[in-house]
């Protein structure tokens, strides 16, 4: 692990040159995998994340089927080569099981699960390269992948982290800010109604800081939502072939 930088904010700018309320460079692409029903690829700064959606399809084992609604299954997984310092041990860990669960809970409120009784929708999120904020980028990718797969949804889900470094509220933390900052709070939002479907927190905020952080997160999610819409529109208008 590298040394802690002396200061994380110099002259009001962050180490990577961003303003406190600025996102890292964001790229979203829909429909990148041929075999999946829906897929998306997201790059947010150093994060590279692939999401694939399968279904709705028949749910096996059958005793897990829910008679009146579909089931949403999510798997968040980090590739062994996704982190810098050492090879990550492959396979599920305590951390990835938790992230899978909160991802599922962040996505569930938007999906019309009751339209597909007994079926299952599988969402796979693969982190190819990690650089802080992978769970939020994973949710962003998964939501685009579900829309790309034609799964009926009430809204997209946009997600970003906010935090506090050197006493300043910042948007979309990078690796150093995540490791050495004072607080980190991933947020997922349903942009249409501004409802929050994921909120976790690590560190401390005062109530006033918390309010500021939420507001900054909402702004960030709105920017991400625009990029998500653009990605979907781009894929399909390319398919429309200049109509």
């Amino acid at each position, binding site marked *: 692990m590298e040394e802690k930088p002396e200061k994380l904010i110099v002259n009001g700018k962050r180490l990577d040159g961003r303003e406190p309320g600025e996102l890292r460079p964001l790229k979203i692409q829909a429909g990148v995998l041929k075999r999946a029903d829906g897929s998306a690829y997201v790059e947010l700064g150093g994060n590279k994340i692939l999401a694939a959606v399968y*279904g709705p399809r028949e749910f096996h084992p059958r005793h897990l089927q829910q008679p*009146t609604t579909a089931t949403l299954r999510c798997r968040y997984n980090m590739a062994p080569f996704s982190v810098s310092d050492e090879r990550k041990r492959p396979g599920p860990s305590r951390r990835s099981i938790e992230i899978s669960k909160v991802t599922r809970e962040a996505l569930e409120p938007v999906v*019309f699960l009751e339209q597909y009784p007994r079926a299952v929708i599988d969402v796979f999120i693969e982190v190819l390269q990690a650089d802080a904020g992978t769970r939020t980028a994973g949710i962003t990718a998964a939501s685009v992948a579900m829309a790309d*797969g034609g799964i009926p949804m*009430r809204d997209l889900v946009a997600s970003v982290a906010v935090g506090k470094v050197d006493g300043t509220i910042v948007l979309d933390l990078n690796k150093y800010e995540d490791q050495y900052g004072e607080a980190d709070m991933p947020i997922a939002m349903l942009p249409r109604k501004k409802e929050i479907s994921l909120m976790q927190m690590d560190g401390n905020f005062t109530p006033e800081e918390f309010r500021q952080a939420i507001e900054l997160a909402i702004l960030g999610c709105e920017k991400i939502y625009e990029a998500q819409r653009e990605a979907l529109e781009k894929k399909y208008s390319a398919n429309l072939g200049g109509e």
Partner: protein
Amino acid sequence: MLNVKRRELVVPGELVAEGDYLLGEGLFRDGREIYSSVVGLVDIRGRKVRVIPLQGRYVPKPGDKVIGIVIDAFYYGWILDLNSPYTGTLFASDLLGRKVDFSREDLSEYLEAGDAVFVKVKEVDELMHVSLEADKWGMGKLKRGKLVEISSAKIPRVIGRGGSMISMLQGVSGCRLRVGQNGRVMVWGRDLKRVNAIVEALLMIEREAHTTGLTDRVREFLEKRIGGK
């Protein structure tokens, strides 16, 4: 009040209209506002609004004609895969159109696992148990041909407005087609080369489903493929 133009591309959660409209597929209501639930193109006919989906799985509806593949047989019928999250049940009496005495007849005479069957969805209950029938003329086992699977969202384009595309495909090639709403198309004919040309044409329709003047381009493609033997 409409918020979008006709044929405009919408994404899930996008405001389509406000007020009294009749909702078709791909839309949901929240108070007075009407939102899209899928990625698709808005279609407006008078007070009726719907979103034509560009992707998505087939979900059985009563009255649909689909091509199923037998995956299992049981004492009084068969279970069919419908290229959907749900399988369908076909009773022997609904295939043969008569009473069947199971102690005297061997059902494997009629259908076996792997057979393709052209069936009609008879009923779908609230738990999505699908029952099928195939006792009308033209239904039942498809004995030969090539089975093509494309996205079920593209099937309306294979049929065309008033059947224009499908009659063109059959007319130009002399092959016969059976189109299932679930995205499966069976093609058969005397000349294998023509059958293969139709298969390619179907894949072309799937790729270019939302372009205009598609029927003419497919006709051109087919004539070139069949003409240049």
